[in-house]
């Protein structure tokens, strides 16, 4: 797949020298004096683009996903390691992350076709519920057993320990649609494993959000935050999900109409739409990912504009992916991992084991084909933005235990984020799906 020779390494070395040269010189010139007024944000964005490009090249030479290179480059530049970028700069880049997530979700939605869903319906549904139940129950049990030995849960009663464990377990169930879409796009993979992975991460996103709200309410009442369990909140959540699907359908039709009727400045239009819809979703608390996935699905399945939309997204995807994943790398808190490394490592392995068990159970029920049965667990190790987002909500909603629980969850996510893409890429290679999308297009 990747031919490496001394010339490639030479170019990489020159790229790394260039990044170091630029960073040192420019930092010396005055970055340290930079007041804000946009200077620091621009510096951070530019630096991450460069470092991410170099990291991606290095990863490709080492036969790893480019995405891992972006993450590592971000991690090295971020506050946890060399501190070239501070926390404030990383926060300023969150605007671009919103755009990136929107484009990734649109792309994911456009991958769903009626044919693909019909073919993989059983596999996706059984797989999703297997992950939800096996990882959810398994991690709740493990956390409850470990609770008496953890500083922040030792004084809770058993019911509260179980409830807090369930919150942690739901975070553990969550996957990373962004990583799955990025790896599939980068490796041009197509096949049963790819379809299985994409279907489950999207369905689980919806299921996890629903279950998370429920479990958080129960946990809140158990640990004495004053919150009480109410059916009204559940109804509200269900309403939001239905509204998200409706909004996604509407936006999908709008995109279709524009591509059909105007057809010019498509990238510009998609950027406008992505930012506009993201703002809309934030305002109404809709599930942004679901809205964009549905929009992408509508464009692909109810019009002939799907390929135009996909090509338009692909034209900007290299920049978007680098910034998104390099920022994710820079946001990782390795310092928190240092104090908890034994527990975090244990939870990482338990989650990986439960993921494998869940995948096996789902495959048996759905009678999946062999590549899925063998490597069906590999897409689901990764965790990223969604899991971190849930952990942040926990820290806000569960005073007392929330902050420590979120720290623990984010530390586990950090490991999953680093190793997940490598494992998934390996799984795709073993399943023989890498490069098949390109082949089929050429064919």
């Amino acid at each position, binding site marked *: 797949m990747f031919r490496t020779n001394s010339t490639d390494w030479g170019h990489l070395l020159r790229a790394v020298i260039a990044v170091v040269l630029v960073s040192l*010189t420019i930092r010396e010139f005055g970055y340290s004096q930079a*007041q804000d007024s946009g200077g620091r944000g621009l510096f951070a964005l530019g630096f991450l683009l460069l470092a991410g490009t170099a990291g991606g090249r290095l990863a490709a030479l080492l036969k790893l996903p480019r995405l891992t290179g972006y993450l590592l480059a971000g991690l090295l530049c971020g506050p946890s390691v060399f501190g070239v970028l501070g926390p404030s700069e990383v926060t300023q880049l969150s605007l671009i992350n919103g755009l990136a997530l929107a484009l990734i979700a649109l792309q994911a939605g456009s991958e769903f076709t009626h044919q693909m869903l019909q073919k993989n319906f059983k596999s996706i549904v059984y797989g999703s519920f297997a992950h939800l139940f096996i990882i959810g129950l398994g991690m709740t049990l493990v956390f409850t057993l470990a609770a008496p030995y953890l500083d922040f849960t030792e004084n809770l009663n058993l019911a509260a320990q179980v409830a807090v464990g369930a919150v942690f377990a739901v975070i553990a169930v969550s996957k990373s649609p962004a990583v799955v879409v990025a790896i599939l796009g980068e490796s041009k993979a197509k096949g049963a494993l790819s379809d299985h992975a994409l279907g489950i991460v999207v369905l689980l996103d919806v299921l996890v959000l629903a279950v998370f709200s429920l479990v958080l309410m129960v946990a809140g009442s158990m640990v004495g935050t004053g919150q009480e369990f109410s059916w009204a909140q559940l109804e509200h959540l269900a309403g939001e999900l239905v509204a998200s699907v409706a909004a996604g359908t509407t936006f999908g039709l709008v995109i279709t109409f524009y591509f059909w009727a105007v057809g010019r*400045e498509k990238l510009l239009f998609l950027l406008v739409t992505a*930012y506009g819809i993201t703002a809309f979703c934030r305002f109404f608390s809709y599930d942004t990912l679901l809205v964009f996935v549905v929009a992408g699905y509508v464009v692909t399945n109810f019009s002939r504009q799907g390929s135009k939309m996909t090509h338009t997204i692909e034209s900007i995807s290299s920049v978007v992916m680098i910034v998104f994943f390099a920022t994710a790398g820079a946001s990782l808190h390795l310092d928190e991992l240092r104090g908890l490394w034994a527990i975090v490592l244990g939870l990482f392995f338990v989650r990986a084991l439960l993921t494998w068990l869940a995948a096996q159970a789902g495959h048996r029920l759905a009678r999946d084909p062999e590549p899925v049965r063998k490597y069906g667990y590999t897409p689901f190790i990764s965790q990223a933005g969604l899991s971190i987002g849930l952990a942040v909500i926990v820290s806000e909603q569960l005073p007392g235990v929330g902050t420590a629980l979120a720290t623990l969850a984010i530390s586990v996510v950090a490991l999953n984020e680093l190793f997940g893409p490598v494992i998934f890429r390996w799984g795709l290679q073993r399943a023989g799906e890498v490069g098949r999308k390109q082949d089929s297009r050429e064919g």
Partner: protein
Amino acid sequence: MGSILFLLVLFVVATLLSRGRVMSSLSTMTATPVLIGLGYLLSPQLLGIALPSLIEGLVPALRLAALWVTFLIGLRFTLWALKEKNLRDLAQVSFLAILTLLLTLSLAYLVLAHQKFFEFSLEQVLALSFILGGLIASSSYSVARMALAGESSLSQKQKLLLLTNHDDLFSVIAICIGIYLWPVQNSLSPELWSPSAFIYFSLSIGAVLALAVRLMIDPNRGAGVHWRLALVGLATLGAGSAVGALTSEALVGFFFGFLLANLYRRPLILDPVLRASEAPVRLVLYFLAGVYLELSWPLAALAGGLVVIRFVAKALVRFALREGAQKSVPLSSLTGFSGLALPVALSLYLSPLDLAQAQLILSVVVLTVFFSDLLTFALWPWRKVEVVRV
């Protein structure tokens, strides 16, 4: 989020105004006055729809836009290609560019030195005259190219495009002299900053960025995705660094482009993706230039005078270029404006230093661009020339 949404809505409005052809028509003289006018209309001075917080949020985009536009202008200066040019042509275009500059500079000096309207010291008048004269003397390469489409002989086209390049080169030199003469006062960090440091940092950051691109991407591999990614990354980094080094993003961009084009020894500006990127970026510049505009009668009078003298200078240039040619070039190919002037004026305005006269420079430049492009629009040879995509 609000600022970016506002910017994107602006894109949509511009797209609708130009019937979906914003990318091609923005570079023409028609879109410039409209967008400047729209910016002024929405600004806090008039309707107040563009709130200060929204404008503040757009500053990073503006900085990057200023750097990117001047970077693309800098890429056109391929010194190695001058060897192929006729020495007489080079001397002629240099003379004509200097003539235009001297005329605009003289008028700026005469008006600014008039104590009835402006109360500046001699040092300030000199510095301002060089900066304003330089900015007003610059040309618009894209308008020149469009005005010549289907017209004129090849040699005439080449000479005119060479002239617009020389206009910009001498403009940059004049601007640098103006900054060098700038009397330091009200500076945020006078112990670290001096006018010479301003120029030195611009040049040095531009040089580092150009060297980095040359190191990262082998020119023999052609301009691919990685090359463009490196350019975008370095340009963004350069804009952030310019803020940190208390210098001008626009000058950094110009030197970056100029040095890169000559390090690679290739016509990089011919890359279609780079060329296509210019028009949407200009949209940000034109609109925000309108937002930052502050009108007053003395400024309007100065701008009006500069528009007239610029027009006279360009007419003289046209007359000189006619020598030996069967047909003269359209006057509108010379009167097109705003290539270099707006990004530099905006970046001086946004400089972290408290440059008291930056508002004056910006307002005069915006007004001059506005009227010059309206004039170009009126002179446009619509019947003869088909508007082509830029």
